[in-house]
Every structure is written in C-alpha cells, then in structure tokens.
C-alpha cells in the first residue's frame, strides 16, 4: 500500500518523466502547454492573448508560480523577470527565457485625484534614478535582499504627515515582509521619497488584486507592487513615470530544454564529459580512463575505428598517438588535431621475458642506429604521408642464424602498416635491419593490438612492435628495449564547420563517381584485392576444414552418446553440454593462449581445432535427433531380409538421416562460416580482418565493410548451393532402382 502511494505520488509529482514531452526552447513552444500565471498579472494578460490554445492555470502568489513549475505540475510558468531573477538561485532545476516584445513599464500608482503627489514623485525619480544611490540600492536588494537594511527614519524629522502606501508583499526583493516590516526595493524608494517630504510612511499589505480598488476608493495615497502600466489600469488610476522596465520570463524545468549545442573541444581540459574513442589496451585508453572524468570511453580495436567513430559522430574525440595524425587528417579532411601537448611517453620494442639476450643486442643495435643518425633519417622519411621509402630486402641465404618471430598490429601507419600487400613501417624496418645484423630472418605475425602483449607473454613470439608505449603494467608481462622515440597523445575532433570546397557544390562528385573512387582506393590501390583474396581463402579454409573435422567429430560424438555404456555416453553428453554453453570466441582464446599456449601450433590450426570442437558438438545433436526419428523397425526389417548391420546402415538408415538432417545441418554450417570472423582475435588474417586492415589505411568505413559483406554473402551462398544440391540428391525418388514406365 505504502509502495503504491509512493508510486502514485511519484507519477503525479513528476510528469516530466514522460520523455515524449515537447521541448521548450522559445516562446513559440508554449502553444498547447499548461502555463501557470499569477492572476491578473501582466504575464496573465500576455499569455491569455498570445496563447489561446494553452491551458492557463492561475495562482494567487508569484512564488506559487515557481512552485508549480518546479514540482512539474505545469509545463511552464510566466512571471516578471524582475521577480524571478533574484529568486532564481534557489531553484537550480529551473531555467528561463525572455518573451520578446512584451516588456512593460513599471511604475507607482496613484489615485486619480492625487496629481500633485504623482508629479512630486516624478520629480524625485528624475533625480534619484540617475544617482549613485539608486545603483547602490538596486544592487543591494538584488544581491542579498535579506541583509539589505531599510533606511532609518527618525519620527521627529517626519512631521509633515503620513503617506499611506498599499503594497502586495509577495514579490521579493521588490516588496516583501521581513519580520513584521514591509521592506524591499520599492518600499525603500517610497521611504526615500517620503523622507524628502518629511513624511512618515504607513504600508498597508494586501493582495495584488486589491490594490487598484483600494486606490480608487482613496484609502491610500499610492501603491507600489511592481505594477506595470496598462491601458486598463490607467483608466482607474494614474501612474508615475516608469522607474524600471519589466520583461516577462518563462520558467520551465531544465530537462524541458533541448540540449545546447555541444561546445567545441579546444583543449584537453575540455574533454571531461565528452566521449572519446581509444584503442583497447593502448596508453590512450589508460589515460582517458584516468583523466577524463565523466567521459564515455569507447574502446575500439584499431586506430581507424577510433577515427571513424569521430567522423560518424559516435564519439566526440579520438585519442591516439600524435605521429599517426598527419596520415589520418590527410585521409579525413573533416577531422582536426586539436592538441598534442600532453606529457610524452617512451616507446619501445617489447620482448618476451625469456629473450633477455635478444633485448640486450637490440639495445646495442638501437644505440648504433641513433649514433650514426640513421634512426633520425628513417623516422623523418617514414613520417611523410605517402612515402615510398623502400623496405630493405634480404635473401634467405643471408638468414643463416634462424628466424626471429615478431608480433605486430598492422593498423598503425607509419609504425607498422600494410603497403602493397607487405607489412612495412618504421619499426618493421628497424627489426628487419636488426635481424639482418645478426644474420637472422624475421617472421611477422599480424594481430589485433590488444592481442599483442598476451601473444608475446605466452611465448608465441620473440618480440613485438606496434608503437608500444612503455608502461609499468606492460613491464610486468614483457620486457622493453630502451625507447626509440617518445610518443605524444593527440586529440582528433570534427572541424566546427564543414569544409566548403572551392567552387561550391559544382565539384561534389556524383554517387557513381564516389563509388568508383572508393573502389579504387579500397580494392585496386596497393593491390588491396590481394588482401581480400587471401582473407577469403583463409575464411574458406577454416570453414571447410572445421566443417569436415567437425562433422567427423559429430559422428563420433553421436555414436558415443548413443552408446549403451555409461562410461562412454556420459562424457560425450557432458562435452556437448559444455560446448553449447561456451561462447566460441572464449573457446578460441582459451585454445590459443592456454591449451596450445606453449606449443607452437599456428593460429589457423588452432582456429580449425576450436571450430571443429564446437561444430562437432552441434552436429552430434542434429545427427542423434534425426537418427532417433527413424523408427527401429526399418533396421529390423533390413536385418531380417539378410542385410548386414553395416549395409543396413548405409542402404537404409543413412539416406534417411541425410534427408532429414541436411536442412538443419545447412543452417549450422552457415553459422559456422560467419563465426569464423572472430579468428582475428588469435592473429589469423581472415576476410573480416582483411577489411579491417584496409580500413586502417583508407579510413573509410562504408566501402570495406560492404565489400566484406558481399564476399561473405557470396561464399555462404555458393556453399549452401552445394549443400542444397546434396539435399536434393538425398530426397527420396520414386524410381531409385526401378525404371519409369
């Protein structure tokens, strides 16, 4: 019951929870809303006239308007900006805007008969409003009205009678009650005026609506209540000169306002609160997580994904290594690097902890490279976008002392990247030269960035390069050489305004032209189709071998689970249940890093093994359920006719199993082909990864992904066509043995 009450109260009290409510960004948005006003006030008149289609809720006090808006009972409230401003500090949840063209003049009201008093007041205003005293008084009341004292009036000096002033006291700081006294900006104004006339002032507090009738019946000499001059009121009373201009403020809860435009990110200091894309496991990832409080950190698997995230607006900024920036901005003119001023971090080559010897030699080699100036030249040349610096080529005969295995991530121009189907870059050249200096060859293994350290620490490679920043965390698992350069973080953001090409719209290429250019860039240039082709072959090979071995395993498992001996059937059942619960990518990683961690089984082989294991489990279930759906009687009939058990199976059972299992098997096979796209996790370059590598060079998301999609579609389509043929062949035919007559 209590809970229900809270729930109801919650519903009633917070209609702003309703996300479908209209945003209130300007005066025009007030149409059709529920607006709260103070009865008879200027905003009341204004709203009734301007927003006939809105529901006007009238309350007695100006402060009630605020309460109504704050509690969400109404969409908006209108009130004098003069009244609102000093109160606004108490209501952080509210915001307001001015209604243009409805400012009114605020003046004191006098009964029609008191023209003399009104004239005297006007004369007082003329001098007082321009004085320093007025400014000081205004500021005093506006800043902290509770502390502002009223001028002390000595009764003995005020011997010229009493000035009776009607006042509505709910409009701090203009008119209010403090203790038992009427105080405020207007009362002070009146008191100062009265002091000049040596008069005492008697304030008569009342409701706003009562003021005019009070004056008309001559009960008071004047009235002050932030009263605006209107025609209607002018007929009843006379006004002094205006002493201030009043604007109407529209109040609303802050969530009813559209989010303001995202402010420009101009420096690292602007970053907190903005989303940032980083490469998983990179130093930028670490930095962003630590320093950008309240930022959403988007972890992606390559630099190109990070930049694409910024370009597409998924992230506000991308944080990456400064040395890559020129290559990215050259490909993506909409992005701009805003800063690279953060503290530099040393970059080194990582070594397997067991290859201390190699690390010592590399350090010596690096020193010599530094001393002769070759390193500086190497860096200079590689840093030119579009560089054609050739890689050193050594023949096998020079590699007499064995091979060094190097792990890398080829998505980081200019450190290590794919050019013309070959992995090149500063660090690649460096390790090639290093290996040559020792008379050794190198073997490069390309993988995702976040896989490099585990790969190295599980002893699968001797060293690793990929612009690896030297961090404490990483030094726990691997050893680093001395640093060969310092990397700085850079922030990439979208340019504020779109770049307008010279000559305007005329130069914007057509759709066909753009497709052609993209095709050229992503497929033809640097013979990138070779990458796609090799990737396709790898995907095909892994899929087909896994399907083959998986099917065989499935048959064995199927026989195992159907075995009458529990020692055989129970483990098989357990295996199948276990495989079903295991995400394939987790299995793949466990197989690669743990099961085959120490043995040097190649990535594709591990992939085939793990996918076979999964596929076998799925297949065995399919086979078993179809086998069981064929009734035992047919087997007995064949045996009774004189067929041996084996011939019975192949002549009668298998054809029916095929016919029933193939449609399900086909689905499972399609899933397998698609599932192979995760092999990038264990450094196998399949079709998906080929697409990733191309994206890392061209910084284009659309085209490589579409091409990869199309190739997957074709592969699966062709393979299912084959299976469909098998399915067609297994369909029962009327004249299998007999002739058609």
């Amino acid at each position, binding site marked *: 019951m209590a809970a229900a009450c809270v729930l109801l109260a919650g519903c009633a009290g917070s209609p702003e929870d309703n996300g479908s409510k209209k945003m209130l960004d300007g005066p025009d948005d007030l149409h059709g809303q529920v607006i709260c006003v103070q009865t008879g006030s200027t905003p009341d008149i204004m709203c009734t006239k301007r927003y006939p289609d809105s529901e006007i809720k009238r309350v007695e006090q100006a402060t009630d308007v605020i309460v109504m808006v704050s509690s969400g009972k109404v969409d908006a409230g209108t009130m004098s900006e003069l009244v609102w401003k000093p109160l606004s500090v108490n209501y952080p949840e509210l915001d307001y805007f001015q209604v243009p063209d409805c400012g009114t003049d605020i003046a004191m009201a006098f009964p029609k008969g008191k023209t003399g008093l009104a004239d005297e007041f006007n004369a007082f205003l003329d001098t007082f409003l321009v004085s320093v005293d007025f400014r000081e008084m205004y500021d005093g009341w506006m800043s902290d009205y509770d502390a502002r004292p009223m001028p002390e009036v000595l009764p003995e000096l005020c011997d010229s009678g009493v000035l009776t002033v009607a006042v509505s006291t709910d409009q701090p700081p203009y008119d209010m009650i403090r203790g038992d006294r009427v105080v405020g900006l207007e009362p002070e104004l009146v008191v100062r005026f009265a002091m000049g006339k040596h008069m005492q002032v008697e304030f008569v507090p009342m409701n706003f609506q009562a003021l005019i009738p009070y004056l008309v019946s001559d009960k008071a000499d004047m009235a002050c209540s932030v009263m605006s001059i209107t025609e209607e009121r002018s007929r009843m009373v006379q006004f002094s000169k205006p002493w201030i201009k009043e604007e109407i403020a529209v109040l609303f809860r802050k969530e009813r306002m559209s989010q303001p435009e995202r402010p420009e990110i101009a420096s690292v200091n602007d970053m907190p609160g903005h989303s940032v894309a980083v490469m998983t496991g990179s130093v930028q990832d670490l930095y962003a997580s630590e320093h950008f409080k309240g930022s959403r950190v988007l972890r992606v698997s390559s630099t190109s994904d990070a930049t694409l995230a910024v370009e597409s607006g998924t992230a506000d900024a991308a944080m990456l290594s400064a040395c890559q920036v020129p290559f990215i901005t050259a490909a993506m003119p909409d992005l701009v690097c805003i800063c690279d001023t953060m503290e530099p971090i040393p970059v080194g080559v990582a070594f397997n902890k067991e290859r201390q010897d190699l690390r010592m030699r590399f350090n010596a080699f690096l020193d010599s490279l530094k001393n002769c100036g070759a390193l500086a030249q190497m860096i200079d040349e590689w840093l030119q976008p579009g560089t054609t610096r050739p890689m050193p080529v050594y023949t096998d005969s020079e590699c007499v002392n064995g091979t060094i295995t190097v792990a890398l991530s080829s998505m980081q121009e200019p450190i290590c990247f794919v050019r013309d189907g070959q992995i090149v870059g500063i660090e690649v050249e460096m390790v090639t030269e290093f290996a040559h200096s020792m008379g050794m060859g190198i073997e490069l293994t390309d993988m995702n960035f976040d896989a490099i350290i585990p790969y190295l620490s599980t002893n699968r490679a001797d060293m690793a390069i990929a612009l690896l920043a030297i961090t404490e965390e990483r030094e726990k698992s691997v050893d680093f050489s001395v640093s060969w350069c310092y990397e700085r973080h850079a922030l990439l953001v979208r340019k504020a305004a779109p770049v307008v090409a010279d000559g305007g719209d005329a130069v914007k290429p057509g759709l066909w032209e753009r497709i052609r250019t993209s095709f050229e860039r992503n497929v033809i240039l640097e013979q990138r189709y070779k990458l796609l082709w090799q990737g396709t072959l790898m995907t095909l090979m892994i899929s087909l071998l896994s399907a083959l071995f998986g099917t065989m395993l499935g048959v064995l498992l199927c026989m195992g689970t159907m075995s009458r001996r529990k020692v055989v059937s129970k483990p098989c059942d357990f295996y199948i249940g276990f495989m079903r619960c295991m995400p394939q990518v987790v299995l793949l990683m466990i197989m690669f890093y743990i099961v085959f961690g120490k043995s040097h089984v190649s990535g594709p082989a591990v992939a085939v093994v793990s996918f076979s294991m999964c596929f076998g489990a799925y297949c065995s279930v399919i086979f078993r359920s179809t086998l069981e759906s*064929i*009734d035992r*009687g*047919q087997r*007995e*009939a*064949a*045996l*009774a*006719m*004189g*067929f*041996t058990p084996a*011939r019975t199976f192949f*002549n*009668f059972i298998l*054809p*029916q199993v095929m*016919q029933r299992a193939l449609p399900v098997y086909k689905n499972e096979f399609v899933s397998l082909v698609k599932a192979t796209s995760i092999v990038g996790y264990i450094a196998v370059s399949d079709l998906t990864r080929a697409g990733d590598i191309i994206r890392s060079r061209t910084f284009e998301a659309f085209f490589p992904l579409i091409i990869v999609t199309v190739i997957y579609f074709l592969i699966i389509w062709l393979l299912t066509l084959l299976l469909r043929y098998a399915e067609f062949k297994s369909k*029962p*035919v*009327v*004249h*299998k*043995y*007999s*002739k058609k007559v």
Partner: protein
Amino acid sequence: MIRIEHLEKVYSDSGLRVLTDVNAEIRDGEVISIIGPSGTGKSTFLRCINMLEQPTSGHIWIDNADVTDPRTDIAHVRRQVGMVFQSFNLFDHLSVIDNVMVGPMKLLGMSAADAENQARDLLDQVGLLSKADAFPSQLSGGQKQRVAIARCLSMNPKVILFDEPTSALDPTMVSEVLRVIRDIASRGITMLIVTHEMQFARNVSTRVFYMDQGVIYEDGTPEQIFDNPQRERTQIFIKRVRSVSSHFDSRNIDLYGLLGDIHNFCFRYGLDSEMAKQVEHVVERVVDNCLNSLDDKRQAKLKACGGMDLDVAFSEKSGHVRMRLLAPMELGHILDPETVEGQARLDDLRSVCQTVEQGMHEGRLQLSLGVNC
C-alpha cells in the same frame, strides 16, 4: 527343416524369463499358428528363430545351420527366412516397387530388370500393382502390410515368420491381409504365424502351437487344439470368454473411446453387426443409468473408494455377451430398486437386455446384464 532345442530367453535389463524351455521341430511346408495369452513369449520365440533376439541358451537349426552359433553367417541364413512385422516396417524413403526390388538386387544379385519384373508380379499378386510408384506414407495400413508381404516374398524365402501381422490394423483391413496370407499358405511355403485371429488360425494352419508359461504347452492339429484340447490351460484359454473391461473414476468418461473399444471387441470375435449394435447400445444405457445419474456426494464416494469397472465378455461357446458393472460396497447399491427412480432405471435396462441382476461379487456390488445372440 527348423529344429529348436531347449530355447531359453531371459531379458537382461528386466530379468524377465520369457521363454524357459522351447522345443519344436518344423517340417517343410508346414503352416503353424502360434496362439496363447499375451506375454507368454510368442513374438520372442519367433524373433529368436531369425536371431533378431539373441537367445540366452539353447539351439536353433535351420536347414542344418545352427543359427545360435556365432560362427554361422546369420545374414546369409536370414535371406531364406522372411519376416512380416506387426508394424510393417517398410523403407520410408523407397517407393513401393523399390521396396520390393531392393532385396533381390542388393542381396541376390538380381538384375534391375529381373527384379522389377518380379516385383511387379508380386505386387500384382497382393493386388497393389497400381500403387507401385507410391511411397509407404501414402498407403493405408492394410496396403502397407501387403507390400511388406510382397517384399518378403521377393527374397523367395523357404520360411516366412509372421509376427502378429494384423494386430496393428484397423478391423476393416484385417481381412485383406489374411486373404493374402491364406494364398501364400496354399503354395507350400513353410510359415509360422503368431496371431490372435482364432478363426483364421483354425482354417489356415496345419499345426497349432499353444504357448504358455514360456514353453510350447500343447502342440496339435487345429481340430485337436480348438475342439478337443488335452491340457488344462489350453482348455481354459480356448473356452475362455473373451472380455474387454474398462475402469471409471467419475461421471466424466470417454464414452466414444469406450464405444470404439466395444466395437473393435465385437468385430474381433465375429459378432454380427446387429449384435454389435445392440451391445454398444446396452453399454450406452448402462453408462447413462448408472454413472451419469450419480449425484455429487456419491460421485465423491465413488472416487474415494476405487471407482467402478465395466467388463464386457463374450463366450464363443454359448454365443452370449455378458456385461458386469462392479462398484464398491461403500456406495450401498448401484441402482436402488426401493426408489421410484431406481426402479425406472432398472426397467429401462431390462427393456434392452435379456437378464438384469444386482448382487455381490468378491466384496463388490455387481450389476450383471446378459445379451443373447
């Protein structure tokens, strides 16, 4: 031709000793019906002959080959011993004609043309040549069983084992299958037929095995077994009234299911349709008068005390159908003749039966009704 010595079969999983000591000798051309109560191992005996069941001990010789000997090429022996199953067991993925061709082609090395000619001939004999190109799933039960017989004949066997060939059939299809079997019997093929069709067994067989208690309890000519059984259990079985019974816990019974059972029962024991109709009618009246009239209190009592049983029994000898409704003592009476209503209901039953009696039977209330043919 077939010699069986001390055949014993114990099911290893349940420990049930189905056959204890079966001995028999079957000569060429004999047609043997195997009858007996359910669960006495008739089917198991048949399935042991072609080794679909592995005997626990004992020997079976078929044409001097000991099939129980592991060294015997059982597949080869089976080619001469055809089998027709209760559930037909046609090869679902082959058409009717291919079902009849596959054996000779794959096992006897017959050419496709010869096999096809023979298959068409056999299908013609069982009257299904027009269905040659159909698949088994498109056939009725009787048609399936006739194809199965044709398939069995295609191997040109010396012996055919029939394992309750009509039990799975609708009553309307039994006769077409029996007629085909009768035809084959007249050709001199050795046949062993496990069956519940007493009339058929009597007419078609040259010898009858009465099986009971895991042995061939009595063995003789049909005349001897059916008209003049020598041993006690055979006599009880032959003279035994055949009955169908059902149990009710409440008023809500599956009346149509019950009437269906009664109909099948009448058909099986050769009651003419007039008589069957009358029996069904009486059952309907009994249910209406004795069950549907229960008030809630009696209904609850009935449920608590174990419900009612209805037996419908037919005696072949006398041609009587006797119905018996048994109810718990706690109910007090089935129909109370003291009340006007009870009397009226009894009169209603009397109007359709020859005899209506209320009494006691083995500690339960009994209402028995008799209908004469």
